[in-house]
């Protein structure tokens, strides 16, 4: 089993590593392009030093993941603005926000070391440069920068290691990186995969660090051979890493998935069907729920897997609940009309539902959300990262007058464990999750119909909505998966014993559909 997991890890390595190196190198270069001139300006203009370093330090205090996440909405706004003003927009997801955020992250060490390196020079040397008839710029280029170069290089080295490490966090905003191993592994409780991602990123960071250290000593002892050797080594690492990326030619269909097991399995299933039909395909895994939908409407991804209720409440801003079929029909029409998106229903519902331990619910005589409301004041509710800020939850809270004592947020795997081990009293579970059965949880009824229905749908972007070849490849999935099959598939990935990868499970699921 572990062997399978490893081979799955290595299979993705060229893509993940290439993307990781690409985004890191671009971020470091962009960061240098900004921070080196800024540092030189701050060296010359003493008043600029404080503010420049302060801003860079503040940026450094923002957690890497938050900084990356903040760039997505920012770019969406800017893109909307440029579309209005100049008639062009750009992709707000993936590469661009990752590069910008990481570049910003790389600035502090370069800025600080460049300023320290330059201000720390012996004033006698600078006086000598002036006395020999150098202009201030000639003195900077010919004397001050070369002499400060080892210190500056040390800053670049720190920045490079930071960027390579932090780049693993660019996965949730849609940039493939070595972080894909970590995030997928975390979702599927596949610790081998998490470890694989960590080790790969650490090895990359160490190799680049050693090469830059060589460049640094090359500058310090003024050995051009060492300097050029180090730079050639870096060029080789970057070149070899980027090589697989050039293989992707032509039109690639990108499948985007949200960050939980079912999405990974279905994403893999769709990708396998596309590949079988002769499409070049790519994946953007672990996107946030709203991020995934906007990525689809922006054209950053071509296919996503979503749920009717999610779009009903979050995108259509509807609070009424006309019933499962009506929601599906109206949503399909709305998506078609508003975005030109094509909808393919898979046949099962993955609803938000509140779940409790069966023994606890029975002891308290709780069968429905209405029963739960009476006990909520003394209870802690656990949910995923999204639910408590979603309109559906506000609707449910209002309908039943919930006032829970405490709320806790979990990565969805840990959420089920938390309720099973009584860390929380109830959770907002997903009805297709295999762990409901595994942990013997009781799903509470929703007599007021406050939760909308959540039929699972495949969304196909406007660009491919009329691509007959693509539609034909996905058509067999329509209505082909029932709740029981999906629960079983989800459990295969989630369970501790005989754990399968999402790819293996997708193959199993494909076999079920054919039957």
């Amino acid at each position: 089993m572990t062997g399978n997991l490893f081979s799955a890890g290595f299979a993705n390595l060229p893509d993940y590593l290439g993307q990781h190196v690409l985004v890191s190198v671009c971020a470091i270069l962009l960061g240098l392009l900004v921070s080196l001139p800024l540092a030189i300006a701050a060296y010359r203009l003493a008043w600029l030093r404080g503010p420049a370093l302060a801003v860079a330090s503040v940026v450094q205090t923002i957690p890497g993941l938050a900084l990356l996440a903040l760039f997505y909405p920012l770019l969406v706004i800017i893109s909307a603005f440029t579309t209005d003003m100049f008639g062009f927009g750009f992709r707000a997801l993936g590469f661009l926000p990752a590069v910008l955020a990481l570049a910003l992250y790389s600035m502090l060490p370069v800025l600080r070391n460049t300023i320290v390196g330059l201000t720390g020079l012996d004033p006698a040397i600078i006086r000598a440069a002036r006395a020999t008839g150098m202009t201030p710029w000639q003195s900077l280029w010919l004397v001050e920068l070369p002499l400060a170069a080892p210190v500056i290089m040390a800053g670049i080295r720190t920045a490079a290691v930071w960027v390579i490490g932090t780049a693993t966090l660019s996965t949730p905003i849609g940039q493939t990186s070595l972080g894909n191993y970590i995030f997928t592994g975390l979702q599927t409780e596949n610790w081998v995969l998490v470890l694989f991602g960590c080790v790969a990123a650490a090895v990359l960071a160490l190799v680049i660090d050693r090469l830059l250290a060589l460049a640094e000593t090359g500058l310090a002892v003024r050995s051009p051979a060492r300097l050029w050797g180090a730079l050639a080594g870096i060029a080789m690492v970057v070149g070899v890493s980027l090589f697989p990326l050039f293989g992707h030619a032509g039109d690639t269909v990108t499948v985007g998935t949200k960050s939980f097991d079912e999405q990974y399995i279905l994403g893999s299933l769709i990708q396998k069907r596309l590949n079988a039909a002769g499409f070049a395909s790519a994946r953007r895994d672990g996107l946030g729920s709203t991020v995934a939908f906007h990525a689809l409407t922006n054209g950053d991804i071509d296919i996503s897997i979503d749920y009717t209720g999610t779009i009903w409440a979050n995108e259509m801003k509807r609070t009424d609940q006309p019933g499962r079929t009506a929601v599906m029909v109206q949503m399909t029409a709305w998506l078609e009309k508003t975005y030109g998106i094509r909808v393919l229903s898979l046949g099962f519902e993955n609803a938000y539902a509140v779940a409790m331990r069966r023994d606890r619910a029975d002891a308290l005589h709780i069968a429905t959300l209405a029963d739960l409301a009476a006990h909520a004041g003394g209870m802690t509710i656990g949910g995923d990262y999204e639910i408590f800020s979603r309109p559906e939850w506000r609707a449910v809270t209002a309908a039943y007058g919930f006032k829970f004592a405490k709320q806790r947020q979990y990565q969805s795997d840990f959420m089920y464990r938390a309720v099973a081990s009584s860390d929380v009293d109830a959770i907002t579970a997903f009805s297709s999750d295999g762990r409901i059965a595994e942990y013997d949880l009781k799903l509470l009824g929703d007599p007021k119909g406050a939760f909308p229905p959540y039929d699972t749908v495949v969304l196909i972007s406007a660009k491919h909505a009329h691509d007959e070849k693509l539609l034909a490849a996905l058509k067999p999935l329509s209505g082909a998966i029932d709740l029981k099959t999906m629960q079983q598939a989800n459990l295969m990935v989630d369970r501790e014993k005989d754990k399968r990868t999402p790819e293996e499970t997708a193959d199993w699921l494909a076999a079920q559909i054919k039957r």
Partner: protein
Amino acid sequence: MTTIPRCSAWRIPPSRAANSSLGNRRRLAQKWGGMIELENLTKRYGDATPVVRDVSLRVDDGEFLVLIGESGSGKTTTLNMINRLAEPTGGRVLIDGADVRSGDPVTLRRQIGFVFQEIGLFPHMTVGENIAVTPRLLGWPEDGIAARVRELLSLVQLGSTDIANRLPAQLSGGQRQRVGVARALAARPKIMLMDEPFGALDALIRDELAADYRAIHDKLGLTTILVTHDMTEAFLLADRIAVMREGVLLQIATPKELAAAPANNFVRRMIEIPRRRAEKLAATMQNA
């Protein structure tokens, strides 16, 4: 001895050096001779007492002037105002009758040789590159520069070694200072300014180097102003000695005149130091 390969990245591209209104600067250089006049020169930082107060003196073309004083006497500041490493608060500096502040300071500095105490060579450049700095800034052709470097190395008596490709850190103190003199002379200046150039050297090397420089001064017909606090050195080198104290010029005279008629007690005490030393030394030698 290992040689370090020259790194072309650290050399000044001739194209960049050449595009700086060169012709104009050359013509200016030829116009100037070596006469230096200081007129009521004053330098003050903020509201404090001036570090240089109303100094006037004249150095003739070809003359060797030693500017002597204790530390804080304002001698280095005076020197710096001649090539505009410092700008005067009052008064002016004339070279061959022209105010140095009428032109561009960079142009001025390329025409005046400047030698520093100890450090002053660029540690990341080889000896050859250090000497070639000013000619490259002036846009001389590369073969001309190479010939000039060889010529200068033999002038400062380093011509017999392959020293041009070494870094300053690989040289002895005396060798470094000879390279410093060669670098200052590279662009054929008429004027040399020297700020305690031999101060950090061992006594033996120091006298040898001082004597060698005086020979170069005479051979090339330079005008030299040398700053020191060592009266013995001043007596050995100078055509005339200018004594400064607390920013004021106390006396300017030939060594002979200075010894015969010191202007005040301070000057007398200053010139008695070498005399007393010489007497003691002579007495010791006789007794031995």
